[in-house]
């Protein structure tokens, strides 16, 4: 059954139809939430929160965009709210990052390719966490989730030209921060 039919049934009060929509999108929402939070439990709570907000806002859905785009918009806004609340409690920056244990143990050749990969992943995510919300969101949507430009523009409510320029700045910023972090921690990220 298509999204539109499911949404219409859900609007008529069918929880089964909404359950089908949840089943279809729960992994995507969870992955988006995990990309932003890097914590399984928090991501799960956030994914639940996204669907509760969608359920409550469903009467306002006017079928002017695809349901998936609308749901992603709710997800991005809910994630931003959560990150804002978190940032009030804990300001993430390159300066106060806890040391990466895997990076510090890199004095011997005991680590194989998988560990190297994991090490790089941690470094990149540490740098990603320190970035401003708007750059972080666009990198997650484009480079992690692999969304097309048009959909990203609809979700973030920006033009394709702005998607292009923001993505360009975000990638440059990420590289710069990864190199800074790598230099500070004594690692060598540059060439694998």
């Amino acid at each position, binding site marked *: 059954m298509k999204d539109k039919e499911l949404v219409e049934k859900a609007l008529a009060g069918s929880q089964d139809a*909404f359950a089908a929509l949840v089943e279809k999108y729960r992994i995507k929402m969870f992955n988006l939430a995990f990309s932003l939070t890097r914590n*399984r439990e928090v991501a799960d709570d956030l994914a639940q929160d996204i669907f509760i907000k969608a359920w409550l806002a469903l009467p306002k859905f006017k079928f002017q965009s695809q349901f998936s785009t609308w749901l992603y918009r709710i997800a991005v806004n809910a994630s931003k709210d959560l990150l804002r609340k978190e940032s009030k409690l804990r300001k993430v920056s390159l300066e106060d990052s806890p040391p990466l244990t895997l990076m510090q143990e890199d004095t011997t050749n005991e680590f194989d390719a998988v560990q190297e990969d994991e090490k790089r*992943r941690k470094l990149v995510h540490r740098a990603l966490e320190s970035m401003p919300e708007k750059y972080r969101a666009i990198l997650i949507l484009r*480079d992690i989730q692999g969304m097309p430009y048009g959909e990203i523009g609809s979700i973030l409510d920006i033009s394709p030209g702005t998607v292009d320029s923001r993505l360009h700045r975000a990638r440059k910023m990420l*590289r710069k921060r*990864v190199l800074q972090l790598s230099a500070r921690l004594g690692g060598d990220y540059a060439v694998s």
Partner: protein
Amino acid sequence: MRCHKAEKIILRTWDHPLSDSERQALSQHLQRCAACRTMRNEYHNLQQTLRSEEFPAPQPYFWERLQPKLQQRPRFSIGAMWKRWSLRAIPAALGVILVVLLAAALAFSPQPEELSQSGILLRNQNPFEESPLLSEEDLENPNMVLIFSALDERNSLRRYFP
């Protein structure tokens, strides 16, 4: 091609197909610029890392945990409402009060009553009240003295002597 332009094209390769001329120009630049080759490798590594992101499985019984929450209607809480709107409500209320006070001040301020000549006469008021009279001090003003003395002189000249 400059390094700045090369970086722009490298970043575009993941989103748009490059034209033949762009690909050739980039290739030539990379052959002679070691810094840009390093930069391209770094961007490539970043892309690989981001695109090969591994996600854990969500917690089980997602819908079973979600369903009871959907049935709960959002509870109305005065505290939460106040928290949400207080920051906007206070300046808005102050603005409204200010506008009301200004309107009241304009509406009730005493306006000078303008009467016609007949109205003034009916009310038995002096019609020349507003026209300024020469005071004693003005008469003592040297200029005034000169003016009046000149008038006197003219009058004397015009006087008729039979």
